Each structure stands twice: as C-alpha cells, then as structure tokens.
C-alpha cells in the first residue's frame, strides 16, 4: 500500500509545481516579479519507522517526497523581472509528463488490485 502514498505525493507535488510555473508564465511581463520553483527532496522518515535492513539486497522503505518553494536568484531583466518564458514552458512540459507518469502508474496499480480481487 506504500506505493499508493508515494504516487499520491508525486501527483500532489507535481500539481503544486504546475501552479507555481503557471504563475511564472502569467507574470512574464510583470515588473519586479521573481520567478519561483519547487525543489523536490526526499525526506528521510523517522529512524524508528524505518524497516531493518540487514543485508545489502533488502529494500529500504522509500521516504516521503517533500517540496520546498524557492525564488529564482538568476539575473533579472531591466524591469526587475527574471522569468524566462522558454525555460518555464520547458519546465512545465517536463513537470506535466512527471504528473502523467504518476497518474499512469496509479492507473496500473488500481488495475492490478482489481485483477487480484477478481480471482
């Protein structure tokens, strides 16, 4: 059941990042607007909740995905805005693909469960 949670987080954070990137594109011509982005990091769970790994082949429980909003510090245009529309569109496409990957994996997961239940 753990992968459901991971996929849910993936979809949640890519959705959030999509919102941030949309704001950047909308404000591509707004003076003094600074571009924002979300950094994904994998936070380690509490040591106690971690599965014991006694052999190198053991799989560790995957940690939670965490998102951290950061403001881009790159050089700005004359009006104090540092949005680069091409970069934002590229990021957005990449992010949307990640989102769709999450959705597809979730679809597969649900189908697997349904197959298992039928037999």
């Amino acid at each position, binding site marked *: 059941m753990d992968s459901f949670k991971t996929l849910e987080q993936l*979809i*949640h954070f890519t*959705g*959030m990042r*999509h*919102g*941030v*990137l*949309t*704001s950047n*594109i*909308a*404000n*591509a*011509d*707004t*003076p003094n*607007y600074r571009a*924002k982005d*979300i950094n994904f990091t994998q936070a380690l769970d509490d040591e106690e909740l971690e599965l014991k790994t006694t052999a190198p082949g053991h799989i560790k429980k995957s940690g939670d995905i965490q998102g951290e*909003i950061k403001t881009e510090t790159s050089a700005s245009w004359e009006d104090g805005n540092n949005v680069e*529309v091409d970069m*934002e*569109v590229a990021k*957005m*496409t990449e992010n*949307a693909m990640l*989102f*769709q990957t999450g*959705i597809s994996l*979730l*679809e597969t997961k*649900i*189908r697997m469960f*349904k197959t298992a239940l039928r037999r």
Partner: protein
Amino acid sequence: MDTFGVFKVSASALEAQKKRMNVIASNMANANSTRTEEGGPYKRKDVVFSSVLMEQSPVELEGVQVVDIAADDTPGKTVYDPGHPDADKDGFVSLPNVNILEEMTNMMMALRAYEASVSAFNISKTMFMKTLELTRQ
C-alpha cells in the same frame, strides 16, 4: 491540489495581455492623430502590470492584472508643415510620440506571452482530464 486556481491564473494573464494588445492597437491607430480631446497630439499609452495573489494554499498562486494605463509623456516629433490645420504660429506641427516599430515589437511580445499562457492553460486542462480519467478505472 488547488482545484481551479491555475485556470484563473492563466485566464488573468490572457486578459491582461489582451488589454495590452488593445492599448497597442489604439497607439498604432492614432500614430497620426494631431488633435485630441485634452488638446495636443495623441500620447502613446502603456499598460502597467502587477501581480495579484489568487490563491494562498497549498502554494501561492499569483495572477496578473492591469493596474494602470499610463500615458507616455515623451515629446513626439515636430515637422514643418504650415498648411496643416494644427500647425502652430511658426508652422510646426507636433506629431504623436508613437513609434510604429516599437508598437510592433510590443505586439509581438504580447502575442508570445498570450501564446505561452494558452499553452499553460492547455497543459493544466490535460492534467485535470487525466486525473478525471482515474475515476473510470
């Protein structure tokens, strides 16, 4: 995930760029207007954009709005044309400070920004549709 916030953000950008396009169109249309209601030649206008907070959680979504349409006060060209009805006593006519090339460039920029927001809107739509398709599983 915010439900429809991203759509509002994209829509605000589309609206703002459209307003900008309208202002550019008036500038270009009035490139030769030497007479206005407030007197003197036409002054080119510029839109002033400002970001506006549309949704607070889970992330701050910032849309854009046109807060002001400001007139550009730089003086335009004056040409010697004594026969012109708006010529002053020395025979000089003040022309609007509209530069067609500048307006064209601005128009291209507005168009590109508009297109980028349309793309963003479409991507948002695809993402939502994909999520909805999960319910059919």
